[in-house]
């Protein structure tokens, strides 16, 4: 799936024997990538403070961009990092737009409360644990510089240091330093 091979006829439209619409191989490939990665991308966007609805729109944009990228026969090298990079760039644009439009200003990192998105009613014990976990994570994330916060979230999504460096335009050493700093803060918060 993430090889560097270019298959020129992937985008060719075909019609099934019944005359019904049939997705091209390229469409199927992009949808398969969506299935693999949409939850990780959306979770990363939420961790940076993008609301669910806007996050879903950004994820759509990412995969449409991926489709155009592959339609033009561009590189297939490490598409996992590519889609995260596009999502990251779009989320940065999102915050710039929000800051310009002060009516809807959103503080980066201020992940909205779960209950504003979904109606879930766990039992009181689960709710307490969830609240404590939520509060702890939020307090750590809010205290981190934005770059550190994004670095930590990308690592939690399974990206390698090299991929994180590529997405956030950082050196490998800077990625390691950032993660070390963030984890130390998280550990201190856990101990309190």
């Amino acid at each position, binding site marked *: 799936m993430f090889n560097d091979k270019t298959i020129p006829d992937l*985008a060719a*439209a*075909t*019609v099934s024997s019944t*005359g*019904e*619409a*049939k*997705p*091209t191989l*390229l*469409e199927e490939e*992009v*949808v398969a990538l*969506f*299935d693999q990665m*949409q*939850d990780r991308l*959306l*979770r990363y966007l*939420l*961790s940076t403070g993008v609301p*669910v*609805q806007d996050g*879903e729109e950004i*994820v*759509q944009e990412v*995969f*449409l961009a991926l*489709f*155009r990228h592959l*339609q033009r026969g561009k590189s297939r090298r490490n598409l996992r990092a590519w889609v995260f990079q596009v999502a990251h760039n779009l989320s940065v644009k999102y915050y710039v737009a929000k800051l310009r439009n002060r009516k809807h200003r959103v503080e980066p990192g201020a*992940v909205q409360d*779960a209950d504003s*998105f*979904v*109606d*879930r009613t766990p039992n009181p014990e689960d709710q307490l644990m*969830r609240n404590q*976990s*939520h509060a*702890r*994570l*939020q307090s750590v994330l809010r205290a981190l510089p934005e770059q550190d916060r994004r670095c*930590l*979230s990308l*690592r*939690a999504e399974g990206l*390698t*240091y090299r991929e994180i460096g590529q997405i956030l335009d950082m050196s*490998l050493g800077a990625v*390691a*330093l950032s*993660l*070390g700093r963030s*984890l*130390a803060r*998280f*550990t201190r918060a*856990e101990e309190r």
Partner: protein
Amino acid sequence: MLSDNAHLSDQELLLAADGELPPARAGQVASHLTECWTCRVRKGEIEASIGDFVHAYRGDLDPLLPSPAGPRALLKAQLAAMTAERAGAPPNGRTKWLHGPYPRYAGAALFLAVLVLFVYLRPAFESRGAFHVVPVSFPEPSLTPGVAAGVNRDQICHSVPPKNRIVPASLQRRVFEEYGISGAEPRAYEVDYLITPALGGADDIRNLWPQSNSSAVWNARVKDALEDRLHDLVCDGRLDLATAQRDISSDWIAAYKKYFETDRPLP
């Protein structure tokens, strides 16, 4: 080679824990760790912090993730539209309607239609995680299965039959939201009880649905007639209450046809 007195830095331990050290250095670090309790303990602490963070991160954010079904369907439709648009609606186009005299606009039209559909239905799949058809005459079973209040036949028949109560505005709004029609004109729909209170229906959102006033045939007036009929049959002892509740909640139009012995609403 590391000296016996030199401990590994946290950064290096983190790189080791994440498998990010160059192979040569990884070998030296592994060798040091076998001999140095201090560094081994510290590496364990770092790994525990990673585990705690990932646990908190996933536990905190996963409950917020909505179902991907709607966005996935939207993506597939948009990709199909983009393929058609790029191909300029070729002779072996994607769908029959793309073959007409307006192939150039077909992709754009499909995309626009999908976009409108997505915006219109979006709240529905956000609220319950799947697409729902905007109701006209039928409630959506997953949203409105019908709920009875647990009253018996005597309670229903030996009191003034309660007509459908006024549903509080806040509850009406929630019903509209669940059906994905928050932006609809309120007068276009009547929030109705699926199992009417006159047949023991409960004041429960799972027993409420937005019945369209625009339906010319199977509308609220027809359903009211069925409710009256079932109430009479139950109270005359010709039909048991549970059957009446089940029939009206599973398919009220089929129930009308059954109990009025007709295929069309009576005038």
